[in-house]
């Protein structure tokens, strides 16, 4: 059984290797390698979860080389790391297979293999971000992830996609450089890069009061860098353009997975590097809380203002990311569990919304404005069904996955003085705004068109894979919504390991 401890490292190296293999292919057969990689890695992640559930400590450290911790490099796996990697793998696989017909239309044939290469590299980077036990390894794979995600956006033939990708790159690079500066400052005052050593040194420095100012600045820079990269308010302006113009698979992977990968690394840094107590004493959490609740409102308001279905879904992403930061900002274990569940719910729902919106807009000749989309639901019933499921989940209707985090957030809000009222009021306002803009799209796609728009002659054929995948996504969403308790208890165990075991 100890063999399973090799699997985290095998996942990372195997993804890197398969990216190189895809480079050798000339046609789009490379995507089968991506499918194989994602399925195989998913199985590996499941094995690691079960191994850790049955093992004594539930946590292991794997040496990357022949030297022990402060000298060499290492990776670590508890319960949260493989579970989140599994989530990312499932979402990537579903987005890739569900949007494959659009990739073939949106991307030049000669360049389709690059899409698969970038998916593989993104997966490698996410695996490394999840498993890393070294802050500099984290940075290196943040870089891989940044370039790969920009490339996923650039592949679309539209000119606007390039503008959007450039803007995304600028924001993303600002985030990366802040993280790098933070890591440099942290190294200069601690002399370590590995998580366990960093943790003990930071606890010591915080207790003695030595270098408190640079320490706070370093932690602030790392946290804000990762927050910028994941699209926290007020750094969410790249979102509508980026998600709105890319091919649906890329939007799904970006909003559902890549931004969550950065948030997961941030969580890992908060618990395993900074330490839960120091984090709470540093007051960084209040900044996250305020920006989180602002993001919830501002994201929803921009979603109401826009007239384009993809932009609306993208703006709603900004609001949903706000929920996650609100949970991190409140800082209690309950709120962090809620934030973790919000990551799951959002990662499962957003790609589904992007895919089904693309299915709807395909029926009206790729138009994305609401007036054109009217009555499109009758032309592609499956896409409309899954869009409705996604919308209900985002709004937070029971039985869907999106309901659970809202419930957890509101139960964890009590007993924090002014924060309680702020959180509950903003949750209520945000939910009403969510209802407003999602209802608008639903009413529009299901209401009959005033004039028979020119869509009679638009030849439209539903790809069978697309219909199957969006139905699977809806089913997964409902399944997670109905059986949330095992997931919550897994997260609780994982969080305990995060906080306590070094």
């Amino acid at each position, binding site marked *: 059984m100890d063999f399973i401890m090799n699997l985290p490292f095998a996942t990372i190296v195997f993804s*890197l290797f398969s990216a190189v293999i895809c480079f050798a292919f000339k046609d789009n057969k490379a995507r089968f390698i991506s499918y194989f990689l994602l399925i195989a890695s998913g199985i590996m992640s499941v094995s690691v979860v079960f191994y850790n559930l049955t093992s004594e400590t539930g946590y292991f450290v794997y040496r990357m080389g022949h030297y022990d911790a402060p000298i060499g490099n290492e990776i670590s796996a508890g319960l949260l790391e493989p579970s989140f990697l599994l989530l990312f793998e499932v979402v990537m696989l579903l987005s890739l297979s569900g949007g494959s017909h659009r990739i073939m239309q949106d991307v030049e044939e*000669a360049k389709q293999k*690059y899409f698969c290469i970038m998916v593989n*590299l993104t997966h*490698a980077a996410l695996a490394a971000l999840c498993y890393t036990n070294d802050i500099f390894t984290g940075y290196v794979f943040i870089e891989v992830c940044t370039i790969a995600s920009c490339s996923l956006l*650039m592949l679309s033939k539209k000119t*606007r996609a390039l503008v959007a990708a450039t803007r995304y790159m600028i924001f993303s690079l600002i985030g990366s450089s802040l993280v790098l500066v933070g890591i440099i400052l942290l190294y200069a005052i601690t002399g370590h890069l590995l998580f366990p050593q960093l943790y003990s040194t930071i606890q010591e420095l915080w207790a003695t009061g030595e*270098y408190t100012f640079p320490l706070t600045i370093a932690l602030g820079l790392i946290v804000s860098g990762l927050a910028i990269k994941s699209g926290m308010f007020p750094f969410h302006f790249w979102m509508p353009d980026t998600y709105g113009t890319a091919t649906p698979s890329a939007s799904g992977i970006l909003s559902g997975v890549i931004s969550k990968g950065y948030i997961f690394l941030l969580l890992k840094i908060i618990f395993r590097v900074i330490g839960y107590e120091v984090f709470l004493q540093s007051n960084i959490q209040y900044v996250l809380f305020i920006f989180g609740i602002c993001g919830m409102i501002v994201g929803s308001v921009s979603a109401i203002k826009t007239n384009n279905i993809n932009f609306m879904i993208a703006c709603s992403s900004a609001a949903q990311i706000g929920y996650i930061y609100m949970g991190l900002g409140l800082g209690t274990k309950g709120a962090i569990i809620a934030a973790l569940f919000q990551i799951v719910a959002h990662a499962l729902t957003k790609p589904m919304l992007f895919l089904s919106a693309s299915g709807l807009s395909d029926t009206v000749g790729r138009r994305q404005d609401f007036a054109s989309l009217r009555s499109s639901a009758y032309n592609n019933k499956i896409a409309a069904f899954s869009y409705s499921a996604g919308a209900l989940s985002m709004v937070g209707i029971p039985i869907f996955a999106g309901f659970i985090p809202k419930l957890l957030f509101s139960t964890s809000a009590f007993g924090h003085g002014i924060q309680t009222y702020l959180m509950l009021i903003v949750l209520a306002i945000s939910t009403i705004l969510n209802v407003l803009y999602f209802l608008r799209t639903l009413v529009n796609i299901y209401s009959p068109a005033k004039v028979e728009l020119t869509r009679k002659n638009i030849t439209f054929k539903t790809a069978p894979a697309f219909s199957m995948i969006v139905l699977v996504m809806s089913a997964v969403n409902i399944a997670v919504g109905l059986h949330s308790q095992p997931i919550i208890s897994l997260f609780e165990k994982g969080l305990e390991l995060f906080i306590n075991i070094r």
Partner: protein
Amino acid sequence: MLMKNNKFSSLLKEWYEGNLSFDERMNIETEKPVIKKEETTEKQKIYLVKDVENAEEKLTSKGYKFFSVIFCVILAVILVGTVNFMPLFADDNTPTTNEVYEHYVGEGRDQTGAVNTVAGMILDYRAFDTLGESFVLFTATCAVLLLLEQSKDKPIKKRETFTYTNDPIVRLVVKLLTPIIIVFGIYVLFNGHLSPGGGFSGGSVLGAGFILFAMAYGEDFAAKVITPKIIRVITICSLSFYCLAKSYSFFTGNEFNGIHSIITPGTPGNIVSGGLILPLNIAVGFVVCCTMYSFYMIFKRGRLD
């Protein structure tokens, strides 16, 4: 009931239906019932241009500029302020002068077999990071290829830039220099574990040599000598070798697997020493060289062949 006919309800209705302007709505309603494929794309183009303009407008808006300046100023003030509280640079009592540093400097030579401590650090102690770094280069190469590579049916773009191809002096000098640069690059690669240098620096020297060659002899000639296939094969082989070699090293590094590495550090100072450091240096060097050369060719010519 109250809101039935007032302004608010009409506004709400407008919003729900997608508040297109009057012109746009007229346009849609009077459209002819046949849309051919070309027309759709043409229409999309109009939408795109308009959207881009909107985006530009948003970007250049005053608020955006104002807040970015504020953000930069605050960041600069914070960073400059932090310097005051930092430990002194290169002082004996800095936190970075710790057991890790002592181990790398004191035992690096014996443990890794590399006389060059930096090579031992990046390719043995922290080889996983370097694996990531070489994949950053690979990702960048792929990104440039997918963004700028032209399809084969399009003619090669000829830019009106100054070329050295017809300059007899430059050609002669390059003819003499290129072999020397390439030999020096190979020396830096192969000697990376013994003297300053290694994969990244040696690869850059090699890449610079090939770029100089392409500049002096023309990209057409260079593309015939260094074909895209060669570049692809070298990149794939180097990265695959790096992955496999380090997998072996990581796998054998954990005792519970029950396998011990057969690779030994050898005698420090010999050319064949340092275990995997020498072959890894060569692999990294080839990746760096191919990345630099293909960047040059893609930016200059639009494609590799």
